[in-house]
């Protein structure tokens, strides 16, 4: 007699166990506590760690933007405003200070594939993966508009319409390298020859001087210095946090 009950109990138990498993839910480790630490003072430093909460700052944010009016190393204010006039002025006056060497061009391609190709497509026709899957729409092909090196840089710096700014993810030099690559893609799309590469040995000025030095052609006469630094300060925010 007991055997019958044993069987029933086992069956019910098995049913309960089986049903407790979530139907096909993908397994994610629920471990949400850190394990015990041996000598925790070797793990948790006295100084602030990256992204830690700090009590002395507003909102307890330890990651801070550079102080207004200061200039971070490796970064310079951009002289064109984020409006129609600034765009037109950059389009007409701004020129690429980075020489079109193979190294810069290759780097530009690598960066383009990371940041731009996801929407603009690997060949710049506006058919990136996100556009094909209809997540982001209305990305134009590079050959459908009149664009110059200056306007490409300007749009990367501030963003345009639904495109966001890429100033926090790239450095000045990197944006110019991407500009070189975008121009090459545009030439391909339009069926005209690309600009010829320059032999690296013919370039004597180090790129840092070209990009950041006083000789940078960014000092176009028509451009006015940006008065409000706030919207450009985001530039180095990210890499500063990383140090």
């Amino acid at each position, binding site marked *: 007699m007991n055997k019958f009950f044993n069987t029933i109990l086992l069956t019910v138990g098995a049913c309960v166990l089986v049903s407790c498993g979530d139907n096909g839910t993908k397994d994610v480790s629920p471990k949400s506590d850190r394990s015990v630490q041996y000598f925790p003072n070797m793990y948790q430093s006295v100084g602030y760690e990256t992204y830690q909460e700090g009590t002395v700052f507003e909102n307890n944010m330890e990651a801070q933007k550079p102080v207004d009016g200061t200039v971070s190393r490796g970064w310079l204010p951009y002289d064109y405003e984020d409006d129609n006039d600034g765009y037109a002025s950059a389009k007409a006056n701004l020129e690429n200070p980075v020489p079109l060497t193979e190294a810069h061009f290759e780097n530009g391609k690598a960066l383009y594939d990371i940041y731009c190709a996801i929407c603009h497509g690997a060949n710049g026709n506006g058919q990136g993966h996100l556009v094909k899957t209809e997540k982001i729409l209305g990305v134009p092909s590079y050959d459908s508009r009149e664009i110059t090196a200056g306007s490409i840089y300007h749009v990367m710096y501030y963003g345009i319409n639904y495109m966001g700014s*890429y100033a926090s993810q790239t450095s000045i030099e990197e944006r110019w390298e991407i500009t070189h690559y975008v121009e090459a893609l545009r030439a391909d799309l339009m069926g005209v020859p690309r600009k010829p590469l320059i032999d690296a040995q013919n370039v004597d000025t180090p790129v840092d001087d070209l990009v950041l030095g006083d000789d940078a052609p960014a000092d176009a006469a028509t451009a006015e210095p940006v008065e409000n630094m706030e919207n450009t300060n985001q530039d180095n925010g990210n890499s500063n946090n990383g140090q």
Partner: protein
Amino acid sequence: MINKKFQINPFKLTITSLVMVFALWSGQSQALDTSDGEPAVPVEVNESEVTESGGNAELGEALFKANCAACHKLYKNAVGPALFQVSEKYSREWLYKWIKNSSALIASGDAQAVAIYNEYDQKNMNAFPQLSNEDIDNILAYTDTSKPVATEIVGPEVAPAVADNSMTNNIVLGALALVLVVLIVVLVAVNSTLKRFAAANGIQTEFEEEDQPARTPIWKAFVRNQFLVLTTAIFLLLVSAYFVYGGLMSVGIDQGYAPVQPIHYSHRIHAGVSKIECKYCHSSARESKHSGIPSLNVCMNCHKSIAEVAESTYNEGLEEYGIDYNKEIQKLYKATGWSEEEQAFTGEEEPVRWVRIHNLPDLAYFNHAQHVTAGNIECQTCHGPVEEMEIMYQYSPLTMGWCINCHRESNVDLKGNGYYEEIHKELSEKRGGRQLTVADLGGLECGKCHY
């Protein structure tokens, strides 16, 4: 102990199993309620009819998506105004002129054009000289298609698919429960009848244990058998050593650590389905020690225009993970102070308190740029299949042994390193002509990581 458990009386058993069955049932129906949420995005209607103005809405849709959707949405203000029924607001001739070259129209002093220009913060609309009047007619035909009413269309199309599945589940469960109940009732009845028979016939059903005073208690017998004591002791020691060792070895190791983050961010969707490069968001991994948690402006690069996920994604999130993705996007908007109505940042920001997962103790130095840019190592080598992780977890143990092991095994790509070519060649010859590993280049020196 097992025997004890099985001697529960049948009545109790019936009640417990009934409770279990109904608990199961109610759990199932609850799941059905949550999965029956409202659809996130209206379903597209196939409308190929030609409207009065002679435009073809289907052709228009393709043109709209290629040219206009960068700034305009149909039913919501975006960078530019919502375009639904725009053809009724303005005359067709005026629209042709505006679309082909709006800035010229504004410059010519057209009152209507200037009013729009000022209303939308004096943003220039791109000129589209490549669109013919016919193209524009097609686009206008598309913008005149009314919003498909989500509930009406979704009702018959999607609801059955969802309900169907859980309905059959429910029916099966109900039938199972019924069968179980019947079984239990029958068994209880049989049991009591048999007992009554036994009592009537004078058969003894419950046996009392006979007294056996000669038998020694089992623990005394165990103590007397020294061999058994010894083997048990050794066995217990080994088992405890196993657990103590395992426990000690897991000290400070957070492999599998998967904390709940303030905003549910799915690496599966972003890195897996959408194929966004890791370095798109974690851009500082290219050039700094930290891979960097992306600042929210990086999220907003795409999420300015993606306020709602696609319907299939939305349903998948609810059904498989119990997450309402659209609510998570709203959390992002709240943190960045983005106002969907005004399509602008309000300036009311609040920090997102992400929980850090990967953390090395301060005594060890690790540099992302060195591994990602110089070493050219895939992110997945250390972080695992991130593109499949709905919830991010720590894949690798991040122990010293794990680091050292990789340094011993990884070959270094020395091509194109002109300055050190000779030295590398000599070193390689010293090591028997094999390719150099990180360890050969000093990757095992204490001072590399501890200083």
